[in-house]
């Protein structure tokens, strides 16, 4: 860039954390939440409505096990996304002036901005995953 219009780079610490690491942090929880939702809906609908009318009143053991697997995998993925984002944040929190408060309000420092997104995204979607988990553990399968 010509010196007459030079500005400091928006992401000076871009070499410290890779793009794909940041993307994992931002996307792991939402992707696994979506997977948990879709798989949960699919297997429960298949089990409950094998024909036109509900055929199952008790949740089969295999379905229960499937829900547990979906729930655990989704929770672990969300926690992993959050942990990776937290690491990225700690690595890049000094990318631009000001601390967490400045990064939250102003957003300067592209890498730490994405790291913050990853932390918050993981927390929000972990909440959604836990809501689904509570549903899969406590709500009856087909009872109208």
């Amino acid at each position, binding site marked *: 860039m*010509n010196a007459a219009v030079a500005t400091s780079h928006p992401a000076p610490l871009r070499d410290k954390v890779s793009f794909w690491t940041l993307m994992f942090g931002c996307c792991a929880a939402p992707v696994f939440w979506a997977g948990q939702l879709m798989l949960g809906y699919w297997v429960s609908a298949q089990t409950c409505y094998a024909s036109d009318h509900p055929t199952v009143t008790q949740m089969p053991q295999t379905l229960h096990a499937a829900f547990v697997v979906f729930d655990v995998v989704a929770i672990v993925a969300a926690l992993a996304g959050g942990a990776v984002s937290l690491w990225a944040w700690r690595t890049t929190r000094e990318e631009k*002036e000001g601390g967490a408060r400045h990064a939250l309000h*102003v957003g300067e420092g592209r890498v730490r901005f994405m790291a*913050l997104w990853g932390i918050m995204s993981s927390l929000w979607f972990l909440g959604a995953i836990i809501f689904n988990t509570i549903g899969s553990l406590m709500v009856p399968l087909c009872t109208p």
Partner: protein
Amino acid sequence: MTITDYERVPTVSTDENQALADKFKRLWETKPGLAGFLSTVDHKEIGIRYIITAFGFLIAGGVEAAVMRWQLAWPGEHVLTPEQYDQLFSTHGMTMIFLYAGPILSGFSNYLWPLLLGARDMALPRLNALSYWIYLCAGIFLYAAFAFGFGPNDGWFNYVPLAARPYNAGPNIDFYALGMILLGISTTVGAINFIVTFLRMRAPGMSINRVPILIWGTLTASAANIFAIPAVSLAFFLLWMDRNLGTHFFDVPTGGSALLWQHLFWMFGHPWVYAIVLPAMGMVSDGLPVFCRRPLVGYTVVALATVATMVLGFGVWVHHMFATGLPTISLSFFSAASIIITVPSAVAIFAWIATIWTGRPVFTTAFMFFTSFIVLFTIGGVSGVMTGSVPVDWQLTDTYFVVAHLHYVLIGINVFPVVGATYFWFPKFTGRLMDERLGRWNFWTMFIGFNLGFFPMHISGLLGMPRRVYTYADGMGWDWLNLITTIGSYVFAVGVLLFLINVWKSYRRGAVAGDNPWDAPTLEWATTSPPPPYNFVVIPTVASRHPLWEDRLQQHEGEGSHVDAGLVLDHDREAIGTSSLDATPDIILRMPHDSYAPVILALAVTAFFAGLAFHAWWLAALGALVVGIDIIGWLWPERKLGETAEPAIHG
């Protein structure tokens, strides 16, 4: 153009000289007259057309609503027959949701995006023109059918089996289905254009953490549309085949599924609701802080909330189907998502309130519309949470409570911000300020009328009044509520009329605005009002989210933004392509000149769909042929666009 030209190092100018401006004007200006009208690819022209057309449909939908409210003002009215009422409420929904609410935001975004991003145009200008022309054609197609008594008559959601041939023998549903597929093409190409523009056309230095929230809103809405539109287009196509070719996708006795329609429709329908509110929320996030004289509180969180709302919005569609008998456990999943989606929405609401609380508010008309939006969004959001709860929804579904909720959402979070945004950006569009005194009358009439009209619908619903009834018997306890609703909706209509009068009056005789009448911080205010055809003489270089407020905010390190010095790009219609994350310049883009290809393609596609609607197969074939020829011509490599690169070494 040679590879050498294509990859040359662009020159930098440190001042905006008149000779350059004159040269750019010659390069970028649309021809006058009909030729220019039909061939322009200027995003500002297209944006204004979108806005005017969408407001035209808003008026049409409003007139339909006024007739319906007259019918419902008293029990036992017979202004309309049941069949007429069916068409009227279906067409009203179709108009407001598909022909007004989405396109109006496309209009604002089309106009504003390149200006906000410091670019000369959208990434794909011809596709932009195509998007508008198809939208216009789809609107005319749908309304032409309505004018002949063939408007949709099964609600805007068009449930089967009522929409199937045995129960709906006329051509109404066929026109609706084909019109919606046509409109879907417009929305899809528009969405692609926004996404590519975001990824490639931001001014140097405008990394993803420096873009205005409106950009995030339209971007997420566009990404959602890419996934959502195919579901509804497929649904309408399958329905059209069921009705015309004898297939059985939705025909239960022959193995089809009525619920398949609802799934496909609402997989689109609920994300669409967010697609038609998130850009409007972005307008408020960008406009409100200007009148609070401070930056938005919690930019990072609000930007993420915008994206998160859209992602969660894909996991809530089944809450429109709670009463269909789906497995209880799966209802709980979608109920959970419907309730947790309030978290990002609440984050945004608290950010707006904190911005007002910690700022120094200037009570302009735009500010009043933006703040009223927060109130209406909260009311609409709370009633949404109520219907997101399965047992509550079972009580409320198909009642007027739901009608109240959706109007609080769609008018509160779309119409109010759009009117506020018009007051805010009108000076940029026209060079003139809107009348503030008339604006106050406009605001209070709309706000009081809206709440008077739509809040009582909650009570009507709680008292058991069902949706979609053309009249009701005396003594049900709904009489006075309906009368109040009608009075309120007419007051609201007067408010909208005052707005239109203000637009006309201000356009003709409004005070001259100047480049930046609100002392706003973003790039669109760095150019003239209205902007020249090329937007910026030099491409700005950005060092913060508020290039025009940097001196007072001190939010950048080292050199600040440059809005009067930057890349020139004057060899032809040129723009700078920048990297997706950090907006570092990496290529000179040759932009297309004005072209008739988009309007011809739109007409040909419409002819194809008209052929299908009338079973005039020759017309469909002719339309398809012209579409093919037009696309070949459109994609034919052009030397001027650098699509036929020549060797760099000559002689």
